[in-house]
């Protein structure tokens, strides 16, 4: 008996010793040699069909596998030639003619032609596919009617023409100043017709054409491996037109949804970059890894919607008082703590070169005056109670509690908190069944329009019941003009209206807090958090 125990202990000890001695190199340590980039990527992608998916993790992977007519500058996001080597624009700014490069190839070696783009646009607009982001293409002439499946609205009516194998002409409904930026959205990226036909995927969702071995793309990388909830791996595409300038030998994407797990993975040298950082770790990481924790401006606004169909929020004085009584500086320095920027207007500063006037401020005296004025005008003794709705999340909760405290202490309001699970919350918001609800908006493209067209009368994401004829007119005018200065004047006035009428209370502008290892070169912070991987390389640590 005793001898057996001794043997067992000795072998267990030896095993532990062996485990402890043999430590393989971490991904970060071997990065300089292998040139394989390992990235935390949020959640498991919904899929890899660019015409079906909608989300940031999907974008991050697809941008390695596919390339549109244009690409973007990794620093400034300015439009650069992609599959199209050049393009011209008609004098009325509605007709774009793209010259496709003759060296463009699919990852199976097939030539990439203008027909492939036409096929792709036709597929995403086909009503039978039910593509969510099809509306991104509604800027094309006749595309909306075709997508709606209107009788008599055939494909011939859509402004997509193939002039020859390497020339594509796109005609727009209206002059759209941000059209070229839109082309950087994956809804405009091409899919390989031969592969889709092989899987019958032209009008069918959920076929296995996106699996490794089946997927044919035209990006700098091709799909190598896909293990659900574990890893997606891509390797260089030898047929990419600019393959000789691609330094990376591979990228691995990890769908790590827990921020704590992701941070541990980073500290263990498992990934080069995290997608986020847990709030409670920010202070410590600032001290211990000052060169690796990054605070980068992101094209997004955190705000509260006010439901103007409910008392007392139907009164603009109350709404403005709520907006003025929030101490945003305290909110970002004490609660969110990630270097967020207090928001005194809606559209993030510098979006497409536009910075809105600060129509709001922290002014308790004025807020109290507005409340007093409201009470005497309506003959009430107290402001009716309101409720803050937020979806289940620790960070939304602490912000809601802080705002609740500010409104209660500064204005003496009776404010309750209501927490709902994500899909229930979405239902409440779309049915305008709330008083005030937390919200966030991330720009789809770098232009004020992606933020400000939300508040059009009856807009799909308005959900506040608010409407202003003048506001609608300004946004429409901005979309139709191509005089940059005149456009910005429209947006300027629109923001002034928002600050006066306050259908929403902007709180702060997003900041991406991430960990990024110094060995990652050619990765530049930008407001869309887009990082074309063909410019990235790894250094030895």
């Amino acid at each position: 008996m005793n001898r057996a125990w001794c043997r067992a202990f000795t072998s267990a000890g030896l095993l532990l010793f062996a485990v402890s001695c043999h430590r393989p190199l971490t991904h970060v340590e071997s990065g300089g040699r292998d040139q394989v980039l390992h990235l935390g990527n949020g959640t498991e992608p919904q899929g890899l069909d660019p015409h079906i998916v909608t989300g940031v993790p999907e974008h991050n992977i697809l941008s390695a596998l596919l390339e549109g007519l244009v690409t973007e500058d990794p620093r400034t996001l300015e439009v650069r030639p992609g599959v199209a080597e050049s393009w011209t624009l008609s004098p009325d700014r509605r007709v774009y003619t793209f010259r496709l490069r003759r060296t463009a190839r699919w990852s199976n070696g097939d030539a990439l032609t203008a027909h492939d783009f036409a096929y792709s646009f036709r597929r995403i607009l086909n009503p039978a596919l039910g593509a969510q982001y099809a509306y991104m293409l509604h800027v094309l002439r006749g595309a909306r009617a075709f997508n709606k499946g209107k009788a008599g609205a055939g494909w011939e009516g859509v402004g997509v023409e193939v002039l020859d194998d390497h020339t594509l002409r796109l005609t727009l409904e209206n002059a759209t100043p941000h059209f070229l930026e839109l082309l950087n959205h994956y809804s405009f990226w091409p899919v390989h017709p031969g592969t889709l036909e092989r899987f019958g995927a032209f009008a069918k969702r959920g076929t296995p054409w996106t699996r490794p071995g089946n997927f044919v793309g035209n990006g700098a990388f091709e799909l190598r491996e896909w293990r659900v909830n574990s890893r997606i791996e891509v390797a260089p595409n030898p047929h990419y037109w600019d393959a000789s300038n691609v330094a990376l030998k591979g990228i691995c994407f990890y769908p790590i949804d827990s921020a704590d797990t992701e941070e541990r993975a980073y500290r263990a040298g498992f990934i080069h970059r995290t997608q986020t950082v847990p709030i409670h770790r920010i202070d410590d990481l600032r001290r211990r890894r000052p060169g690796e924790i990054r605070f980068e401006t992101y094209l997004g606004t955190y705000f509260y919607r006010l439901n103007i169909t409910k008392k007392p929020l139907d009164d603009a004085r109350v709404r403005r008082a709520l907006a003025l009584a929030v101490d945003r500086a305290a909110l970002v320095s004490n609660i969110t703590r990630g270097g967020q920027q207090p928001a005194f207007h809606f559209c993030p500063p510098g979006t497409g070169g536009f910075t809105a006037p600060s129509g709001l401020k922290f002014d308790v005296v004025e807020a109290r005056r507005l409340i007093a004025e409201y009470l005497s005008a309506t003959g009430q003794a107290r402001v009716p109670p309101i409720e803050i709705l937020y979806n289940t999340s620790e960070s939304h909760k602490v912000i809601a509690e802080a705002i609740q405290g500010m409104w209660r202490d500064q204005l003496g309001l009776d404010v309750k908190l209501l927490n709902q699970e994500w899909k229930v919350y979405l239902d409440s918001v779309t049915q305008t069944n709330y008083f005030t609800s937390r919200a966030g908006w991330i720009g789809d493209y770098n232009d004020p329009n992606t933020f400000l067209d939300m508040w059009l009368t009856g807009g799909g994401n308005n959900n506040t019941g608010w409407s202003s004829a003048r506001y609608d007119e300004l946004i429409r005018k901005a979309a139709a003009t191509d005089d940059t200065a005149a456009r910005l004047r429209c947006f300027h006035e629109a923001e002034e209206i928002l600050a006066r009428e306050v259908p929403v209370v902007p709180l702060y502008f997003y900041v991406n807090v991430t960990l990024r290892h110094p060995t990652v070169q050619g990765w530049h912070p930008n407001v869309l958090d887009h990082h074309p991987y063909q410019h990235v390389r790894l250094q030895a640590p």
Partner: protein
Amino acid sequence: MQASLARFILTRLLQAVPVLLIIATLTFFMVRLAPGGPFSGEKKIPEEIQRNIEAHYGFDKPLGEQYLRYMGHLLQGDLGPSFKYVGWDVTELIGQSFPVSLQLGAFAMLIALAVGLPAGVIAALRKNTAADYIPMGLAMVGICLPTFVMGPLLILLFSSKLGWFSPMGWYSWRDLVLPSLTLGLYYAAYIARLTRGGMLEVLGQDYLRTARAKGASTTRVVFRHALRGALQPVVAFLGPAMAGLISGSFVIETIFFIPGLGRHFVNAAFNRDYTMVIGTVLFYAVLILALNLLVDIVQAALNPRSRLE
């Protein structure tokens, strides 16, 4: 015995069919009652596009018709496509993640038994001594300490401080160690307490006194006579515990970033991934039914007084 065993198994299998059908039906209608749907998101989709998507999946049909269609596919063994993970079938997703959970769960169970059984036996034999108090105290701590505390503690020690194991992932055999230890120790604590209780009850019985009086050694008394009876409560616990273990743990899989079934189980409900919810629930039901059947058979073998009925 052989014939009665076969009849017993056959009856139970036949009973399982209506149970599963009822579970599938209840789940089908319950997930539809939850607010929101698989395609609702923060960015509102234009009305006509929403209609296109719903038509694609047949959501525009009456609910009764959808139910019949679903059940028709189900009876052919087709759990349908996942609504969230476009391009994957529910069967495929379960098929990929179950082996991972099975491996992790089986290993955790081995740890739980290897630690829990001896601890419980020794504690019962040395009742009210340090050899009883210390393991039972630790077991109490183990039960009280949730896995989301234990997991990060083990990571802190064995990964961050000592660097022996990777803090997360499922890429080599080393990745099995920390998560199965976390899960296993938690179950070990239960098993230890159950074993101790069972042993104490059995040790006082007449037939054991007889065995001792006849001069049987302690080892022989424990292993040959006592353990058989003492394990009854443990076996009853093991059935559902095993089903729980091998169908994956959301917490462990999230902490350690493991591609198991537990994450699918929970995320499916959050995503309103209807087919995935029904698929995972049915799968879990089958596991429970199968393991309970197994438990009944094992218990009958352990206890000659109980009969298979």
